[in-house]
């Protein structure tokens, strides 16, 4: 599963990376990311998650070839 992050998240993670182990849903993904970088807990808490340009909730079940986007709070305009 490919993960892509944006904006301030790039201070905590590579812009794009592959997840080593399979994670079942968004909640599990967050836990896996926190193991990668515990300092990201604050920002991850207020991020939204998306797959194929659609926001997903905590229960969303990933499939192996999903492209996952982690979306920090917007600051456009």
């Amino acid at each position, binding site marked *: 599963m490919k993960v892509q992050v*944006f904006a301030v998240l790039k201070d905590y993670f590579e812009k794009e990376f592959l997840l080593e182990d399979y994670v079942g849903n968004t909640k599990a993904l967050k836990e896996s990311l926190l193991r990668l970088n515990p300092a990201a807990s604050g920002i991850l808490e207020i991020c939204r998650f998306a797959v194929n340009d659609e926001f997903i909730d905590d229960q969303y079940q990933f499939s192996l070839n999903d492209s996952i986007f982690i979306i920090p*709070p*917007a*600051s*456009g305009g």
Partner: protein
Amino acid sequence: MTASSLSHPPVVDRTPHITADLLDINKMFAGAHHRQAGGIVLFSGEVRENSNGRTVHYLEYEAHAPMASGMIAEIIEAAKLKWDLKIAIASHRVGKVEICESAVVVITASVHRHEAYAANRYIIDRIKHEVPIWKCEFFTDGTKEWGGNCNCHKITGDPSKHIYET
């Protein structure tokens, strides 16, 4: 088409919702006239030289472009339906934006001014809160900081639930 309408053939605006190019506001506005629209409102969100007491040198915007563009299109359609708009246009910059330059332009045209104002505000509010676009402020002291517009989660407890002015 009466003679005078030939003097104002509809100029269709093609500016993409997300663009790295300088926003050509005059051209966008030229595309917003409509023979049944008595009120046109244009909003331009521009870069200020100060932010929370620090002097800004320039801003840089990042977007998850395909998703952002799709969401802006949906927001525009929702506004068109809700306020019976004749025309609605919105474009946001990515990349470097200088002081006094426009980062986002929203234009709405309707029969009467009330709807144009309300819809314009609705569109820019939703873009700023919901659409995956981010600004990074570069200060003259050499530091930089990712801006955080949307803090609604502190009140709603849910990053996808926002609070809009009625």
